[in-house]
């Protein structure tokens, strides 16, 4: 979600004045954006030392925690929105993290690289793993340990009892509502607990 246009698309999903928890908030860019443009407040969670310091420098409230340890720090529905952007694919306990997201937030917003984007399919069909803008790593050094597709997430959401309120793809900063599983490199889902 480093791209400005991607960031603004995601930000537009967050209701004004929300109390927000951003899981894997990086250097706090999105939280700062939400604070300044949508009057939101809340916390980021980040594990990386340099990114934690960067958040503090821009006065974004950040908690240095390992998401793999869960969200036991937070009560049920203690946030209006829990964001999980470009984070899902790095976590071992994906299912649990989604459950936790839906427990802690009234709304959950997830964005992750869509492995079924046509460019990835072509690359795999040619016999090689994709290396693209959304998936910029070689297979041997990727931090993405959970690669899934837009369609896969719909299935998982159903299994976890999450009702999807809105979903679309993003391709090069543009919203993709037609055939997102094929035409978008990033999948976005907004959901709540059923």
């Amino acid at each position: 979600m480093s791209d400005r246009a991607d960031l603004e698309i995601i930000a537009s999903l967050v209701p004004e004045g929300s109390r927000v928890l951003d899981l894997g908030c990086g250097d706090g860019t999105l939280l700062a954006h939400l604070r300044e443009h949508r009057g939101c407040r809340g916390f980021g969670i980040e594990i990386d030392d340099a990114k934690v310091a960067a958040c503090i420098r821009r006065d974004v409230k950040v908690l240095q925690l390992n998401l793999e340890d869960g969200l036991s720090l937070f009560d049920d529905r203690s946030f209006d929105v829990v964001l999980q952007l470009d984070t899902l694919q790095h976590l071992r306990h994906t299912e649990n993290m989604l459950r936790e997201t839906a427990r802690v937030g009234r709304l959950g917003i997830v964005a992750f690289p869509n492995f079924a984007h046509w460019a990835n399919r072509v690359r795999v069909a040619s016999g090689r793993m994709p290396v693209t803008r959304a998936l910029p790593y070689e297979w041997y050094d990727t931090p993405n340990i959970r690669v899934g597709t837009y369609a896969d997430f719909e299935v998982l959401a159903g299994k976890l009892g999450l009702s999807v309120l809105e979903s679309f793809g993003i391709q090069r900063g543009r919203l993709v509502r037609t055939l997102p599983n094929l035409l978008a490199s990033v999948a976005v889902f907004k959901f709540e607990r059923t």
Partner: protein
Amino acid sequence: MPLKRDTSPVSALAVPGFVFGHTMSSIGPVAPQRMHFAEPLTLQSGASLAGYDLVYETYGRLNDARSNAVLVCHALNASHHVAGTYEGQKDSEGWWDNLVGPAKPLDTERFFVIGVNNPGSCFGSTGPADLSPVTGRPYGADFPVVTVEDWVDAQARLLDRLGITQLAAVLGGSLGGMQALSWSLRHPERLRHCIAVATAPNLSAQNIAFNEVARRAIVTDPDFHGGHFYAHGVLPKRGLRVARMIGHITYLSDDAMEQKFGRELRAAELGYSTHDIEFQIESYLRHQGDKFSEYFDANTYLLITRALDYFDPARAHGGDLAKAFAAARAKFLLVSFTTDWRFAPARSREIVKALVDNQRDVSYAEIAAPHGHDAFLLDDPRYHAVMRAYLDNVAAEFASPPPGRPKAGEIPSGDRPAYSPGEGQS
């Protein structure tokens, strides 16, 4: 938590400080000041401390709005001498000199920094070695039991006298962090930021156990004389040495100790002796114990470890820390160190949770420093980057005061003395 870090092997692990192009320089020569308080201090125990002195140091300049003051609270065996050096005294750097000074994270060119020696200590403020106004003899074991809350109240009185209504921040590590937390609960309107490093919402049973072993070592020293050793012209140094050795073990991580000492022998061969020093770690601990027993007061050690034991702001709220922190108004920065097993990160996370539950502003850094509890005194660059970033924002708040912020003359202050920093040394 040594007073001076001088040539301690631990500090050799620290990374030399050179940050953001600023050569780290000490603030230079400083001098302590003394203030007398005639009005007794009512203590948590119900007892009171009759007329007492507080010794303190200040660095930097208090701005006209009196909005740039930062109080630094000291831990077990430190003092008001936070930064700078004493003229003509070698190795006299303050205990947090790597953090506090010109262009350092707590920048004395922007902040007015105050270090206060707590009552009950042995570095100048009224303590057990001082004469009791009642008996005319040293207080000794009769010095009243003081708590973190009592210290905070004593510090608040000093600030009253300095004409400081609200602090930009209160900052402390370990026991000093407990004082910072206590400030946010006892005087919530008097600080804008609370920075608590390597601390805990209370001591665990294991922690109290370590303190108790240290206290028993002191109390059972034949030279202790029930705390009235001053009259006998002796010092319970054996007890203090052992107390310090135990403490030191708990301030270091297993890894740090292993890396520094391992199983290294002092001599080339085993001496087959049960009382001589064989391993370097023994030599190190004995050296630390010896040094400590030369300058630290035994009764102070008992008092301060007890203050640590007693600190438990949740106690008055049925053990509910979130209820305790409902009173807090400040913004918080909490820092812990992954290898600190004396004040483990999990304890800091309890505080974070209590603050999050109350929807307070809090940031939390968990630094993977290798040094154990002692890390809070060292200058790990990740740790100092977080402190610098946070304190820069604290400074930005008063650098361009928003319209409507009270000017100096408008701050209500009952008995503000004619005071300017750097004067009134005694």
